[in-house]
């Protein structure tokens, strides 16, 4: 599989190289707007709107390092092809986008090309941002012009040959990029369309949650497309499959609470989704969050979850793990999550009938047990309850056992998991 996909990849690379160097040719059809409002009051309103939209786009998450100046970039994004570093997008003339016009900015958002015309790596989610309207792009531009400039050079990417050749992105773009602003579906409500615009556009939810099928074939193409998504070793559930986080049987209110507050009666966010709520979703208006929830709930249900990714365990070994897990659960988990698995929501999420626990991939429950976690402080949930890490307290066998137990109790129908998978995930990056 590995060899096959690399072969496919090299074919794309060769094709791209054969096409030769393609740089921006200077065509000027985008140069038709300015992001300067008529009056100072209008300008202030524009900047404010831009700030809101920049929140919706979660620009800050990738363009800021821990403890660093906002939007100054420098965040490493590990990929199998090397490490990308996010650029400085403050209005610094030398190192940021100080010399960019609103046209340049819109071109990056809409077509995935930099000011000099070079192709941007799709770690920048232009395949989603292309759906953003010119008006919204201009507002974000105006906001980014208003933040303090950072005189920090963007760090060069460290990609291995041949991935350091941006022209190979032509292949990627041919396969996966469709340029175009979001178009309302006239058969759906205004609210639904607003939700779709936010989810598919600025929200760029598909960067993590896209089901494999959309890539036109499960794993071969994933080796290419997926390689440009950071390696975080968290599993973003399919939003379309009821076996995973499929939202078909969720109340709109629970979805909206989860997105805006980080917790709900049905579960809490953790890992990378905690980041999204923290930096982005909690700042959105109730109306926008509800619109997103309305749209998400209508994503068509698909029967098949993505291919499972578990080591197999024998039935006998699985049974032994279950018995050990029952004991571990009683000792370590039951005081919060209750012996009946129903938890004490929203503080302590229920584990019974919890898709995130029993879905084919056991990555998330294993990592929760190993690393614990706090949902973000949000307006409605400023002092979240947290789960302790157990990496230091439990052996791999015990972690496998307790995860097996919660995957198979109270009506949950997950498979037993192997201690080997726990071993693998102990080294998953936390920062």
């Amino acid at each position, binding site marked *: 599989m*590995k060899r096959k996909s690399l072969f496919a990849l090299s074919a794309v690379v060769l094709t791209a190289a054969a096409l030769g160097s393609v740089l921006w040719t200077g065509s000027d059809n985008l140069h038709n707007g300015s992001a300067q409002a008529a009056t100072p009051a209008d300008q202030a309103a524009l900047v404010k709107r831009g700030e809101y939209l920049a929140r919706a786009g979660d620009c800050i998450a990738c363009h800021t390092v*821990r403890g660093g100046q906002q939007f100054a970039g420098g965040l490493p994004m590990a990929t199998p092809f090397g490490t990308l570093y996010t650029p400085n997008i403050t209005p610094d003339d030398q190192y940021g986008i100080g010399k960019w016009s609103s046209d340049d900015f819109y071109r990056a958002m809409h077509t995935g090309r930099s000011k000099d015309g070079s192709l941007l790596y799709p770690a920048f989610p232009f395949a989603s941002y292309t759906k953003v309207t010119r008006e919204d792009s201009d507002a974000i531009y105006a906001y980014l012009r208003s933040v303090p400039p950072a005189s920090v050079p963007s760090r060069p990417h460290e990609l291995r040959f041949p991935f350091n050749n941006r022209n190979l992105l032509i292949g990627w773009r041919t396969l996966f990029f469709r340029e175009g602003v979001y178009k309302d579906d006239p058969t759906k409500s205004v609210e639904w369309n607003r939700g779709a615009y936010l989810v598919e556009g600025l929200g760029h939810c598909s*960067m*993590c949650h*896209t*089901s*494999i099928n959309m890539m036109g074939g499960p794993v071969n193409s*994933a*080796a290419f497309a*997926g390689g440009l*998504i*950071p390696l975080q070793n*968290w*599993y*973003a559930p*399919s939003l379309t499959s009821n076996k995973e*986080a499929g939202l078909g049987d969720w109340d709109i209110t629970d979805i909206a609470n*989860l997105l805006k507050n980080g917790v709900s009666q*049905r579960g*809490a966010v*953790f*890992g*990378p*989704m*905690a*980041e*999204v*709520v923290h930096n982005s979703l909690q700042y959105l208006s109730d109306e926008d969050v509800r619109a997103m929830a309305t749209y998400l709930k209508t994503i068509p249900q698909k029967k098949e979850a*993505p*291919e*499972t*990714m578990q080591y197999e365990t024998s039935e006998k070994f699985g049974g032994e793990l279950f018995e050990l897990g029952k004991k571990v659960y009683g000792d370590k988990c039951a005081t*919060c999550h209750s012996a009946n698995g*129903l938890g*004490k929501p929203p503080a*302590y*999420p*229920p584990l*019974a*009938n919890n*898709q*995130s*626990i029993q879905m084919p991939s056991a990555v998330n429950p294993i*990592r*929760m047990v190993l*690393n614990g*976690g*706090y949902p*973000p*402080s949000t307006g409605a949930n*400023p*002092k979240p309850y*947290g*789960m*302790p*890490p157990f*990496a*230091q*307290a439990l052996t791999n066998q015990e972690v496998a056992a307790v995860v097996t137990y919660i995957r198979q109790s109270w009506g949950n129908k997950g498979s037993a998991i*192997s201690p080997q998978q726990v071993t693998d995930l102990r080294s998953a990056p936390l920062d």
Partner: protein
Amino acid sequence: MSSRRIFRPLLALLLIGGAGVATSAQAQTQPKAPDTMEQRVQGCTACHGSHGQGTDNDYFPRLAGKPAEYLFNQLQNFREGRRKYPPMNYLVTYLSDEYLHEIADYFSKQRPPYPAPAKPTVSPETLARGKEIVLNGDASKNIPACAACHGKSLTGMEPAIPGLVGLHQDYISAQLGAWRSGTRRAKAPDCMHEIATRLTDDDVNAVAAWLSTQPAPKNPVPAPARSMKTPLACGSEPQ
């Protein structure tokens, strides 16, 4: 299980990237979690002890009774990356200043008993050297006494200088080493970095060894704010 088999799933993981949502139905009749800080800090107490007293693990230090502002500074340092310990960085990343203050306050008010001091494992000469540096410093190397800031009874000073008793030898030497190398930092001016770079390995070892053998005083509370004139400016301690 072949490596190919697991690799394939990993590819899928790459594609689907990363987020998680714990979900479930029902719940209306379940009891609510008590609305207390004690419940909320369970993410901390699994490692730091139920009252922040620390545990047998050398690297899970005592939190109880340290000045609240010191604890807050450390939580913030972890959040902002000035201190690096991935499990801690990860836990506090998305918590607000206000909440971190409450967590810090909670542990600063805990008064669990101190552990019995460690039995010395180093030579009497090393212990004597450690005691000398802690109580008197080493003027020849421009090293101030630890006690000059952390107090004669080594219980720290309000609002942000921590006590030094009740900590394990390995923890103390790891912190001094981290300050020296710059992997543990504080707001500038980073006084502990300056001091640690003047210490040799032997000095670090001696200081850590002697401190870990010291019993807690009868009244192990931090000295009042501004009760000592500290010899260095520290960004984390208002002057």
